[in-house]
């Protein structure tokens, strides 16, 4: 019952956040200069052509009316039609999802698969040579922002191997392995600094756990180091790193925007920039809505997971959201 109440409260927060976010989008749109019709038709359009387009798209209605109409539709699942592409916003978003989601998942996998072994190696013997090397390595990685990394890698690859074909994107439906191949390098660029961050936290947490009582007791009972590590330390450490991981995940979603630009991938980032440049209100509102939804859901999920695992978190002001 208490859990249900907890979940219910969070849902209300989710709803309110989405409302505020969509309102902010509406406010932003009302303030920024720029006329959708002129952008679509260009500077050589005549006044008649412009007003014809405006009435066709409903642009002559006041902004607030358009916003309310859109909002009504949004909460029933219809995010409206894009002005520029004359297509439902939802299908435009779902078309690009494979790129953004694919990269996020790949990045997350890389983060987990690389930072865990690194952290275990380091945490096993703190202060050792391997620990220090890995730590320094982690620090350097941290300073390499995905944007810079992508450009450096592309430059290096083209210098070493000739032209590196960025921008060759294949849909997962036509060639799944080709699709993965295209996303591999960009995901790696995004993942690298996150690996460093996760590694740092995980290592610190492992070291702390190692010094705790129950570990000493288990050891004195004869349990091997390895089994202690995997059965007790890691799970406990993971709990405290979950918040970091959820931060990482939402960062990944945001970080993919610029990497998409550099690697020329048709993901949500490009669509967002296009929506802004073309003053495409339904598309922009739809995308912001969607992005906000994902971010909030991620935090929500992270909090639920840690609340379920660790009862202490539940009482402490509902965690970090």
């Amino acid at each position: 019952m208490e859990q249900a109440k907890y979940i219910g409260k969070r849902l209300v927060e989710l709803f309110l956040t989405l409302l505020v976010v969509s309102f902010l989008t509406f406010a932003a749109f009302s303030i920024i200069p720029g006329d959708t019709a002129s952008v679509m038709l260009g500077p050589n359009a005549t006044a008649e052509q412009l007003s014809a387009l405006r009435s066709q798209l409903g642009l002559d209605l006041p902004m607030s009316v358009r916003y309310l109409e859109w909002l009504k539709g949004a909460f029933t699942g219809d995010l409206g039609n894009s002005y520029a592409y004359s297509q439902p916003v939802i299908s435009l978003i779902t078309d690009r999802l494979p790129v953004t989601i694919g990269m996020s998942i790949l990045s997350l996998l890389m983060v987990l698969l690389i930072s865990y072994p690194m952290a275990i190696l380091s945490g096993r013997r703190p202060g050792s040579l391997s620990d220090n090397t890995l730590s320094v390595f982690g620090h350097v990685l941290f300073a390499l922002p995905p944007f810079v990394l992508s450009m450096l890698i592309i430059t290096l690859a083209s210098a070493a191997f000739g032209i590196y074909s960025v921008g060759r994107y294949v849909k997962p439906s036509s060639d799944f392995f080709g699709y993965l191949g295209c996303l591999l390098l960009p995901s790696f660029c995004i993942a690298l600094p996150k690996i460093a961050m996760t590694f740092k936290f995980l290592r610190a947490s492992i070291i702390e756990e190692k010094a705790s009582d129950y570990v000493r007791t288990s050891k004195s009972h004869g349990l091997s180091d390895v089994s202690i590590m995997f059965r007790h330390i890691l799970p406990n450490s993971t709990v405290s790193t979950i918040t970091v991981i959820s931060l990482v995940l939402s960062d990944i979603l945001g970080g993919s925007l610029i990497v998409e630009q550099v690697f020329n991938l048709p993901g949500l980032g490009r669509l967002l920039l296009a929506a802004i440049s073309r003053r495409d209100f339904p598309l922009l509102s739809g995308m912001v809505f969607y992005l906000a939804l994902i971010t909030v859901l991620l935090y929500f999920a992270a909090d639920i997971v840690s609340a379920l695992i660790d009862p202490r978190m539940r009482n402490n002001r509902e965690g970090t959201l």
Partner: protein
Amino acid sequence: MRTSLQKKTRIYMAVGFSLLAVILVAFVISLTHLYVYDPNSTNAAAKLLPPSSDHLFGTDNLGRDVFARCMEASKYTLLVSFCGVFIAFVLGTLLGMPAGYFGGITDKFIMLISNSVMCFPGILLALVAVAVFGPSLFNVVWALGLVFAPTFARVYRTGVIGLSSKEYILHAKVLKVNPMRIMLLHIFPNLVPQLLPAVVIGLANMTLFESGMSYLGLGVQPPHASYGKMLADAQSYMTMAPWLIVFPALLLVIYVLGLYFLSEAARLSFGGERR
């Protein structure tokens, strides 16, 4: 144990400072105009030259000396990141501290606004700020501050919640000490270990975000440059003129690394933990 910690701290500080020294040297050069070539003078005859003894870092697509521009860029990169972080920090403090301390409706309300801003695409926020106030550097910095304020607010809030169960805080509350005093004198100093990494991450992210803004023409305005802008501009020439990317990227990394090492050193000496 303690000695090795001290040693570590000292090493980190040394590394951090030497890295930052590189940037500071660049900064000083840009202030004193110790250039062979002026960073803004275009030269139609000298386009896209690779590094040579004449142009140490080569020239860009407008014939400008890349070395001089890198020096110049340090000015704006430092300016943008520090001012931006400062604004984000102040805003974050104003939001996060009361949220964490008072809890209840204040907390809920502030967090709602803060989260919404966080979910909002930063570029759009920046566009609005620039649209309303004009595309000057000043406004760019404000936009950056706004975008990053929620992150700081969140760090504060978590930190304050973590501390509020500590005894000395509870004592102070019972004694009805002025909340402002409590927040400034007791809570704030103890949050420094958490705040420093956030500041460093903020500085790095700010530089990146500013370069993202450059794609839309919202960041540092030409002919000035920041490392982020130089990278954004160099994107079309990635394969043709790699020196346009390598040098600004290198300097950017040095900058962030230097800050990072310093913040680690600070954290080690403050926190006193084995981490």
